[in-house]
């Protein structure tokens, strides 16, 4: 910034030198102009900087993600109290070791063939999906891009990791948060993390490759090879 001011000052004598030396008032005006324009330059710089920072930190994240509501506001806490095997009661491992992920309608129907309680969300679920045998189009917060291979069995069964390490305490939530979909990639905001700068406090705040690598480095001594996940 000083450089700009200096330059402005340096320019003035040159200009003076080129003009008639007796015309001092002009000279004075020039110097005043230079000071004024130096201030404006700074001002404009600050405006630009501030606008870009606001755009980058506040507006951009709002524009980048679209807000989507889950089809049914599922209460994890309520269900968790009723089941015996915790998360695995519904998010179970199949016989072949593959992970079932989000439960299918068939599982829900085991209990919810008819409306059981008074929750309007349950009623909506039964009427819209159970009655018509339509699968619920759940929006999956933790869905990784298609180019990523991930085995739950290796992490949960073999390494005995807790679900919360990656998924946090979703099992204790009473409502489903708004699903924020990245307009460019189409994946959930939870992969990059809520914090647009990518800072995280908890292990479950972010699900990027670096997070996988960090844990792998710590637990296995190696970040792992590309093809372990990108097959």
């Amino acid at each position, binding site marked *: 910034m000083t450089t700009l001011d200096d330059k402005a000052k340096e320019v003035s004598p040159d200009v003076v030198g080129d003009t008639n030396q007796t015309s001092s008032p002009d000279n004075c005006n020039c110097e005043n102009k230079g000071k004024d324009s130096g201030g404006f330059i700074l001002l404009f*710089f*600050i*405006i*630009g*900087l501030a606008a870009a920072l606001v755009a980058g*930190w506040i507006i*951009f994240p709002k524009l980048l993600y679209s807000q989507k509501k889950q089809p049914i506001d599922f209460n994890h806490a309520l269900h968790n109290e009723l089941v015996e095997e915790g998360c695995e009661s519904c998010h179970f491992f199949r016989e072949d070791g593959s992970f079932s992920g989000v439960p299918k309608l068939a599982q829900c129907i085991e209990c919810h063939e008819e409306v059981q309680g008074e929750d309007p969300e349950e009623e909506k679920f039964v009427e819209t999906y159970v009655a018509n045998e339509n699968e619920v189009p759940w929006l999956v917060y933790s869905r990784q*891009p298609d180019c990523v291979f991930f085995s739950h069995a290796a992490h949960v069964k073999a390494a005995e990791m807790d679900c919360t390490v990656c998924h946090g305490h979703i099992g204790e939530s009473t409502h489903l948060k708004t699903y924020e979909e990245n307009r*460019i990639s*189409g994946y959930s905001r939870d992969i990059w993390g809520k914090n647009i700068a990518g800072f995280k406090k908890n292990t479950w705040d972010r699900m990027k490759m670096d997070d996988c690598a960090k844990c792998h480095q710590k637990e296995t001594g190696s970040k792992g090879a590309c093809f372990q996940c990108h097959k």
Partner: protein
Amino acid sequence: MKLNRRNFLSLGVGVVAGTTLSPLPWKLMDDVSIWTQNWPWTPVPPDGEVTYEKSVCTLCPGGCGITVRKIDDRAVKIEGIEGHPVNDGGVCLLGLSGLQLLYGPTRIKSPLKRVGERGEGKWQTISWNQALTEVAVKLGELRSNDRSHTVACISGSDQGTVPGLLNRFLTAYGSPNYIRTPSIHDSYEIALSLMHGGQSSAGFDVENADFVLSFGSGIIDGWMSPVRMIKANSIWKNEKSKVVQIEPRLSNTAAKSDTWVPIKPGTDAALALGLAHVIIKESLYNKDFVEKYAFDFNAFKTIVLESFGPDDVAKITGVDKKTILSLAKQFAGASKPLAICGRGQGKTPGSIDEVAAVHALNALVGNINKPGGVWAVSQPDYIKWPEVQMDAVASSGMKRERVDGAGSEKFPNANYLLNRWVGAVNSSKESPVQALFITDANPCYTLSDTSVVKKAFDRIPFVVSFSSNINETALNADLILPSHASLERYEDVPLSAGLTKSVIALSKPVVKPQFNTKHVGDVIIEIAKKLGGSIEEAFPWDDYETCLKATLGDKWDALVENGYWSDPDFGVPPWEGAFATGSMKFEFLGVVRARGGEKDVQAKHLFTPVTIEGNEKSYPLTLIPYDSLRLANGSIGDPPFAIKTVEDTVLKHKDVFIEMNPETAEAYDISEGDYAVLNTPKGKARVKIHLFDGIMPGLVAMPTGLGHTGPDEYLAGKGINFNELIGPVEDADFGLDVVWGIRANLTKA
């Protein structure tokens, strides 16, 4: 405060600095890279639970056991069942492509009624109720006018409950006109009934044979059961078994055989008899079998020794004497020799003389009902429905002679004669068929001289197709009642394609019906119920599934679990008691006697060359077809996956190549890739020339399975249907179409 150049630049610098200090560029870069690595328009198959469902492939008669890999409710891959008696884990190109026939866009999605002219392809979607009512009304009308016998049904099979129900329907309705599409099985069935006695189909214990003498059978080109044969071929290579391929063209089978013997086309029977001559003359035959279990060996011996000496045979067949002697000795000297026939894939019946002569070779070496030999296999007898109680109309209708003349005084040995049926429809003043049902068949494509077949269809006022896509025959129908695809339905499939075991397979609904289609079995039951009376009474089942479960009884559980049921008590009868002919022995001259050579056996009764159409002067070349595993040529055409595998010396863009020996090409001053017009007495076609040393001079060969009009852009309009260029040649005594080629000429285009 003015936005001059300096200020503007300063603003810009500020924006750049601010942007750099914000997450925007870094986050955008990350998102864009994820986006580019996972293009949203690239289809990603949904993840889900992996399951496998065992079933049977019904795309050809081979009967391979398949296990279909599913992700949730979607079938994603077809694999072979390990340990299955037919294919033991293998699967062919057509089988692999089966999912395209299930999910492909050309499926017929609901019943269709023709609104334009026949063949125009203009359809109106109608409801099942309307479709079935229309059929019932038409059938009711014909029946009330005492014309029940004018209803006919063409089917690809006569085994199992669906053909059984169709046949039962015709019986209860009053028509004897159930017709199976022709194949080599017709010839084998007739030959076996005359030589062994009784009804049986030929089983080939190929896996255990140590010397295979193939008279033109495309063993690894799709003969009988393609995957089983390819597996057998591997066994032969490992066991160092010998394979001799006798045919005028170097097919894949010939190329992979130990010896290829080029022969003048249509003279195979003479060669087989020539080999028999040597075997008998040199006393190399199995004396135990011939003396104890054969009825007429001496008569056979006399005529063969008299008329089929190696010199004569060499002249007829073009195979030199030395080769004849050597082949005969090798064949008779092998411990488990097997002689087989059925040209190419065996899609046409072919000459019964040929089957009889080849089968006589097996009998001479005693390799009948023995490991590595030919077995007469009776079909599993599990359909035990109560006899149809026919009313007066049905009884009188059933007494009528069949339209095709099979089983009549003229052709007492034939079961089905579709080629004659076409002739009968065309030659009568009024079509003897007033209503026709077609299932699992595409006669307007697969029969010789398709234009005549289409003409016959034009003369039939009411044609109903059960096809699940618009093939050439469905295009000429009035109503299409689309059947479930093979992966959507239950159906029992008794395996008969040359298997030496009695096996029933079960086709299972791997996925739910994708469209508004209906099982053929259910359609028959519903029509019967609409017609009422004794017809309805003949179908005491609520639906097809109930019928099938009741029919299969205690076999059902095993069928559902394994996909097939194999008769544990099955074994071929020992020679003693194996034959049900008049003499209760094997009859070398069974076929000859049926030809009228009862008293005075002459050489012509054993071998009369099949004269092909066209005179040699106007048509100096001989056109023969060839079959390939890459080109499905039955009722189902190549799915997109399969057609993409066809070499560009067979099909390039839309042009088909005919194979020609360079020597022949020289005479025509024609070179590789040139266009030419191929003329036969039946039609002409623009073709390209492929020079091939593996075809005998004077012959040209054309692939089968091309020239479809549908069902999709991948297949339609590519190449020429060989059947448009050839006409049937009828066997005078048995009525079968025995054609093997046609004369042709060529003009450079």
